[in-house]
């Protein structure tokens, strides 16, 4: 390599041609001043949607396990209170009979909606409308939960549901 050191030094003195000043402006424009100014991404962030669904599924499983653990307790309470009511806290207080009815008092503790399938059914035109609409079908599983704070009993209702959403498409 020593044979070439002089040549390497000569080469290093040679300066590459300068980029045009316009290039900096073009790169700046392409890049944006900050990442926030970068081109807007698609509103459908599939990764986030996937993670959200996974998180919802985990929560759902956790709630299911919790329910199984309290099943025995629930059966015992059901014997004491065969017809549980879902009356709210406020009316009971007004009646002044909170102590006696607290066993029957269930308060909402959670609601979960797990979207497990989304289908884009394409564009369509509503009757009498010239604006196209995108038809999206969501298949979900909804779960509602109530809990009796006194007895610890909980009530859960789950059911599948399907929702069709029409989104106006603009700029076509």
């Amino acid at each position, binding site marked *: *390599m020593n*044979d*070439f050191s002089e*040549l*390497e030094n*000569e*080469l*290093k*003195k*040679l*300066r*590459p*041609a*300068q*980029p*045009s*000043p*316009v*290039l*900096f402006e*073009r*790169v*700046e424009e*392409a*890049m944006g001043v900050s*990442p926030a100014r*970068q081109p807007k991404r698609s509103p459908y962030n599939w990764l986030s949607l996937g993670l959200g669904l996974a998180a919802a599924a985990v929560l759902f499983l956790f709630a299911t396990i919790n329910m199984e653990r309290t099943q025995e307790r629930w059966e015992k309470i059901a014997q004491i209170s065969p017809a549980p009511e879902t009356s709210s806290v406020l009316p009971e207080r007004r009646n002044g009979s909170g102590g006696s009815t607290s066993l029957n008092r269930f308060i909402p503790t959670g609601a979960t909606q797990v979207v497990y399938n989304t289908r884009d059914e394409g564009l369509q035109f509503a009757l009498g409308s010239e604006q196209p609409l995108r038809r999206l079908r969501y298949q979900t599983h909804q779960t509602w939960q109530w809990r009796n704070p006194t007895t610890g009993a909980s009530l859960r209702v789950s059911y599948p549901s399907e929702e069709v959403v029409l989104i106006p498409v603009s700029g076509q």
Partner: protein
Amino acid sequence: MRTWQRLGYKDREKVMDNVGTHENWKSCFSEVAPGLLLFARQWVQSAADAEDVVQEAFVKFWRRNHNIENRALLYAAVRSIAFDFIRRDKRRARREAIVFADAEPAIEPQFEWQDETQSTLAAAVGSLPHDQREVLVLKIWNELTFNEIASALGISQNTAASRYRYALANLKKSLQPQ
């Protein structure tokens, strides 16, 4: 007016580190742009086309937030985008050849030389075989290590080093008085 100055290796690491961390990309770009352009000019004829290639590569690199460990990736991106450009350009060239059949092609210099010696040296670099020239450009004017050159070009480190030596040997030979 921006001026180009040679960076020491450590300075260069800092510059590339800044590129990776999204900090002050303008100063990063002003430092690396001449070398990147020279590298892109190994495939595309005009300076304007080389700037297109460098712009696309740098913006992609910056947005993906690569760090110093992926420095070779920036040069690999320039190379890859230049290849894509050549493919597109071939089709364009065929169309333009019909229109500009009699026009003289404009060859823009890749270097800024100050005297006759440097002009001769630049011409000698330009006449090197392509595979040797791209290694020389990455080593001398972009200051990449042989490991990084190997990674950027998809060749082995030994091949990169031997191409570099061949390039220097060929240059020395061509610069010797006849």
